[in-house]
């Protein structure tokens, strides 16, 4: 079996047993990227030299007998809105073309400390605004399972890279489902940690109270491995929690006896593809067979979470994107009349249509006279939604739903069914509003395209998520199905 097809934990074992060199591993993945990325489009930058240098370094450390961790020599693809010093950080936008990150994100520092290898920067919807990777200013990403279909978004590049064996691990970001949804559409595992679990220092902000970095991998064990490495307190991000990062390895067992799982009745109505409904129902049976107690529950405020998200998300985005003005970095318009015109031209020419639309929505919601009625109202509803989840987690350990109501749609085909569009946000967005963690795990196939199962958990209970996900995964064969590419 070629090295690039192995999981991260399998590569780890080979590296630790000195059966393979880190340079071999990195080289095989770089070659794999050369072989398939023209078709996929997952990478905006392949860090060939940097990765080979880093891999050589780790080999030197190993031959000197230095102690190494799980991620040593393991290549990781990083979404192009997470700062890696010396590399581009376009955020999928022309407005940051040419910009080189002058520092590492905190989580990247962690990865480098663990001797992981940064393979390159992955493609994304512009400024993380989208769910299909179609708004990238550079190029589209194709779903490895069907090159006519989208990978999902906004972390489309990161999901596709893992699904196409271009990287064993990748990192994406979420504001409203942008890790879980592409993970589901590409048949890989994707986690959104609890808000505050992973430092956002060095991660370009979209919605500061919603954003979280999330790992993607081809199985739960791999996902847990990198999740642990990137989590933890960071003095430079005061929203990170001083709560111990659990040893996620301990959760990787099939025993889920007595775990109480809730199925929200609002999530299984019209608009949900029948094949997906069936896959999720079968998944629930597997969990029951493994000892979980499954019952119906209710999340009546889900539809309000959506309205609150559109307001909070765009409001925060309008504020966060004010810094892109052509002055200190990135794109600066040439034909300008004066200093203020520099802002107008640089921003209007540098930003794409969807980004400008969301900035307008957010600016409106925050403008004088509306701030209280719109933004603050949304923040009050946020409180109610939080309470809704807290109520559920008194009775249940986890909530299950499909991750997406449809499988990957065709490139260029906007989902026309309004009920589907609505459901596709309903499944993912409430999680970001409340800040709770959630994981998506492959649980089926419909017409040759992957289906994801979403497990949502209580604050800082990623251990429960990994436990349930692992138990399900190891009782089925979905994690052994791969895109034929």
């Amino acid at each position, binding site marked *: 079996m070629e090295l690039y097809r192995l999981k991260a934990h399998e590569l780890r074992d080979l590296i630790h047993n000195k059966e393979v060199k880190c340079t071999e591993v990195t080289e095989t993945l770089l070659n794999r990227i050369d072989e398939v990325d023209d078709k996929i489009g997952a990478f905006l930058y392949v860090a060939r030299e940097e990765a080979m240098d880093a891999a050589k370094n780790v080999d030197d450390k190993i031959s000197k007998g230095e102690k190494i961790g799980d991620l040593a020599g393991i290549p990781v693809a990083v979404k192009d809105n997470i700062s890696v010093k010396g590399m581009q950080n376009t955020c999928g936008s022309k407005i940051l073309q*040419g910009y*080189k990150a*002058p*520092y590492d994100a905190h989580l990247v520092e962690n990865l480098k400390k663990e001797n992981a290898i940064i393979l390159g920067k992955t493609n994304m919807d512009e400024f993380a605004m989208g769910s299909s990777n179609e708004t990238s200013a550079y190029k589209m990403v194709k779903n490895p399972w069907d090159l006519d279909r989208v990978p999902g978004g906004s972390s489309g590049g990161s999901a596709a890279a893992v699904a196409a064996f271009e990287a064993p691990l990748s990192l994406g970001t979420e504001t409203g489902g942008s890790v879980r949804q592409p993970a589901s559409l590409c048949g890989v595992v994707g986690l959104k940690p609890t*808000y*505050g679990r992973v430092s956002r220092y060095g991660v370009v902000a979209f919605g500061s*109270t*919603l954003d979280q970095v999330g790992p993607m991998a081809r199985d739960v064990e791999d996902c847990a491995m990198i999740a642990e490495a990137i989590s933890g307190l960071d*003095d430079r991000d*005061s*929203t990170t*929690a001083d709560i111990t990062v659990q040893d996620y390895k301990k959760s990787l067992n099939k025993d889920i006896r007595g775990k109480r799982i809730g199925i929200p009745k609002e999530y299984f109505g019209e608009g949900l593809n029948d094949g997906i409904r069936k896959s999720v129902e079968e998944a629930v049976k597997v969990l029951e067979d493994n000892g979980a107690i499954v019952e119906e529950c209710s999340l009546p405020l889900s539809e*309000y979470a959506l*309205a*609150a998200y*559109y*307001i909070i998300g765009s409001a925060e985005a*309008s504020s966060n994107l*004010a810094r892109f*003005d052509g*002055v*200190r*970095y*990135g*794109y*600066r318009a040439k034909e300008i009349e*004066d*200093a*203020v015109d*520099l802002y*107008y*031209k640089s*921003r*209007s020419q540098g*930003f794409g249509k969807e980004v*400008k*639309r969301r*900035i*307008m*929505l957010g*600016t*409106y*919601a925050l*403008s004088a006279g509306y701030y209280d*009625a*719109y933004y*603050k*109202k*949304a*923040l*009050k*509803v*946020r*409180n*109610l939604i*939080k309470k809704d989840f807290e109520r559920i987690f008194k009775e249940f350990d986890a909530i299950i739903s499909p991750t997406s109501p449809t499988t990957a749609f065709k490139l260029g085909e906007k989902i026309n069914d309004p009920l589907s569009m609505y459901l596709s946000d309903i499944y993912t967005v409430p999680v970001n*509003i*409340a*800040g709770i963690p959630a994981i998506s795990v492959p649980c089926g196939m419909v017409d040759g395209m992957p289906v994801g199962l979403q497990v949502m958990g209580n*604050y800082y209970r990623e251990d429960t998520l990994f436990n349930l996900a692992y138990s399900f995964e190891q009782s089925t064969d979905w994690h052994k199905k791969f895109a034929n590419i």
Partner: protein
Amino acid sequence: MSVIKKDVEYVAKLARLEFTEDEKEALINDLNSILGYIDKLNELDTEDVDIVVNPYYLENKFREDEVQPSLQLKDVIDNAPKHLEEYIVVPRVVE
């Protein structure tokens, strides 16, 4: 109360964005959708509800007022669209 073109122009000015007339028309619809979301949210009684900014309550964190190394000047200046030595060059602002 519905959004009109003047509102779009005002918001565009705040956001430092320029649009064609056609784009402005489309944006009228988009901004009106916000009103739709608000109507939805107004179905809920939030009279006695506090706002929640951060989804998971955390305390304010302070640090000692110590000087730490910042970004490398060279890396910062390399990113500037136009520079002169360690200054970023911009069009004249004050007459």
